[in-house]
């Protein structure tokens, strides 16, 4: 999901409560295609405490079809097979996190 400004049609992630382009507060949620291309990535070997059980894990930035960028973990592919430019889709964990910010956790995976 991204936020779309009703007054200037700008689409943005992260969702902001005031349009960064025209300052309008007339905003609406828009569903995105959930498809993107990998712009850059890393494989984290030394994580913060709460991610230690998952290490090493890959994290990348994708460019969604709508042109927006999003950062997230890359799963379902071996780190050594990841390349800049591969196509990835956005998927979601079914469990809601118990900690703040309590948003459904998303990740990227090969189609």
């Amino acid at each position, binding site marked *: 999901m991204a936020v779309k400004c009703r007054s200037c049609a700008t689409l943005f992630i*992260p969702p902001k409560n005031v349009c960064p382009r025209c300052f309008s507060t007339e905003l609406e949620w828009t569903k995105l295609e959930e498809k993107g291309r990998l712009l*850059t990535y*890393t494989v*984290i070997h*030394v994580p913060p405490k709460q991610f230690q059980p998952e290490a090493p894990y890959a994290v990348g930035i994708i460019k969604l079809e709508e042109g927006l960028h999003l950062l997230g973990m890359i799963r379902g592919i071996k*780190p050594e097979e990841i390349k800049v430019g591969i196509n990835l889709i956005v998927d979601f964990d079914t469990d809601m996190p118990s900690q703040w910010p309590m948003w459904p956790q998303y990740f990227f995976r090969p189609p």
Partner: protein
Amino acid sequence: MYGREMFAEAVKEAFERCPNLDPKRGVEALFVGHMGESFEHQGHTGPTMLDWAGLLPIPATRVESACASSGVALRCGIFAVLSGMHDVVMVGGVEKMTHRATSDVTEFLAMASDFPFEQWQGMTFPGLYALIATAHMHRYGTTEEQMAMVAVKNHRHGALNPKAHMQKEVTLEQVMSSRVIAWPLKLFDCSLITDGASCLILTKPELAGKFTDTPVHIIGSGQASDAIGLYEREEFTTLKAAKLAAREAYRMAKVESRDVDVAEVHDCFTIAEILAYEDLGFCKPGEGGGLVEKGATTIEGNLPVNTSGGLKSKGHPVGATGTAQAYEIYLQLTEQAERRQVKDAEIGLTHNVGGSGATAAVHIYRRE
């Protein structure tokens, strides 16, 4: 040693270098950079530092801009003097980090990135700069070896600095074979978790001669901001805030990048020094890896960079880094840098970056 004790030592040295300035009456305000109250469970850093330095009761203000905290504190001090509000102010920075576990330090430093879309996705600071490195390698063909050469150079410089945290040379093989922290960055691509404090005394040009025989003039100051989230930016191979801050500083100083004789840049990771060369105009975009490979940025090179050892070898006590960079430029421009002295340096530059580039402060200096 606590942060406040280190700061008191730095203040003592600053006063020793200004023998005609009365420590009790001469300084009118303090601006101190400090990133994280989590490290020592101590906030309200302004009066804490002031008290230990024996400077009560003048106004003391903490400045927080992540790793650019004291670069921005320096700018606040410049505002205070240029506004006419104060004649003499102290600016500095402090951070005490080494007593904490690496995982805690990683978590505290990550607070300078976007919480929901970076920290919450498992991102770390080495991770953010690794994303920059991957993008730079992909776009320009920069190599892991070229990044490693930044570490080798800065450790060679740091080995000559008695105040450096790690006064030890490293070989290219050691850097390349060190363990992976966030691919493609390895342990020796990362700056050090360091304790440290630094400070400077600022005054008007017409008063400087009263206090010291070796003043250095700050002739340019620039600062700019970018999105807190790296992912929000159009490009990952440049720090736009650093480019804008440099442009402002060069314009104010009426100098160009080719006029710079010595620079301290924010090498929190080796790739960051390569970006700094490009963002400061020392070379064209994409040519930063080649610049270090040619040896242009060693003490003996055309444009010595990070003669102190940089964040890589001198160390990176985050809040103290900006004014520690200015201290090295002060030593260079007043011919006090001893074994790492650059010959005939007239113009110096510091480049201090907060987080993954959401803040950047650039300052330009000229010797008397």
